[in-house]
């Protein structure tokens, strides 16, 4: 098999062998920030997006040794996908890795969830991810290489009372991942989902302590645990992994 062109990585670490950059949505904190740092450590120039945490986002970008930019965006805006991809491409090169991480929750029992809570969660967690993927695939398919990594959740495949909207969005994200993966597989583009369990972030800060007793690993996950999986899926080594869900939950779903 002929070897592909290898480009020099821009930072020590060297796992990246492709041109282009990584775009991480929701990169100002939590899993997104850890993902941005992990990809940068592998040599990827990183564009990370934020909606309101400008200072935090810039701190993440500034703390990265390689090329990194923080881009403000509301991913639910119809034009956001085009704007973000265009800006990332202009500043850092073609988007070779897209990490759909931006996510929100608005909990309530189904009988009490209002339309706004339903719509908001689906719009950010699922529809935005679709639009960004659709836009990113154009270039990835033409270049015969790409990585789309969707941060889903163990919630979705699993029940979690009070999160019908969140569960729907994450289960939907997994379904979307599989179908799109199959559509583009022969173009060298992989599309995968990661299903984190309980990860210590702002989103889980309010969760009760007794939840930990249910986790076989007896600890919550760290954002770095998830980021390590993103790093693998973004790499050349993961070229034969597509259309799948990588669960990172300390054994919770086993």
């Amino acid at each position, binding site marked *: 098999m002929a070897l592909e062109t290898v480009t020099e990585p821009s930072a020590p670490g060297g796992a990246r062998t492709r041109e282009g950059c990584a775009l991480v949505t929701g990169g100002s904190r939590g899993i997104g920030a850890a993902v941005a740092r992990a990809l940068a450590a592998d040599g990827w120039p990183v564009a990370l997006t934020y909606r309101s945490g400008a200072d935090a986002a810039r701190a993440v970008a500034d703390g990265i040794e390689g090329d990194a930019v923080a881009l403000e965006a509301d991913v639910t805006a119809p034009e956001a996908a085009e704007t973000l991809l265009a800006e990332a491409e202009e500043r850092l090169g073609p988007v070779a890795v897209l990490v759909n991480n931006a996510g929100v929750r608005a909990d309530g029992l189904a009988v009490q969830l209002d339309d706004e809570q339903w719509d908001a969660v689906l719009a950010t967690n699922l529809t935005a991810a679709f639009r960004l993927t659709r836009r990113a695939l154009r270039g990835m*398919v033409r270049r015969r290489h790409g990585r789309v990594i969707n941060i889903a959740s163990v919630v979705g495949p699993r029940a979690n009372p009070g999160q019908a909207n969140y569960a729907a969005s994450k289960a939907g994200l997994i379904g979307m991942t599989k179908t799109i993966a199959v559509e583009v597989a022969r*173009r060298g583009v992989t599309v995968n989902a990661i299903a984190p369990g309980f990860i210590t972030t702002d989103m889980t800060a309010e969760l009760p302590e007794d939840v930990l007793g249910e986790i076989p690993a007896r600890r919550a996950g760290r954002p770095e645990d998830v980021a390590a999986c993103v790093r693998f899926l973004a790499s050349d080594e993961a070229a034969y992994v597509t259309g799948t869900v990588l669960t990172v939950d300390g054994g919770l779903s086993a």
Partner: protein
Amino acid sequence: MSATVTAEQVQPVVYDALAEIGPDRDQITNDATWEELDVDSLDLAELSQVVEEKFGVRLKGDDVAQIKTVGEAIDLIVARAG
């Protein structure tokens, strides 16, 4: 992009794009069907993208479903660009 796009301008772009996507160059003729060229919907989506970038012509899913040969694709692009 010129004001009037002709078949003579479109044909080489379509042929080149198809050759890059898969079929052998000598198999590509105006009469060739997608089936004969082993070109599927993903290939046509990519061809549509090239056409849009080059001629500003947007071919949607329904359009692509109607055209069956390379020649029909060229005719449609010329018609839409005009």
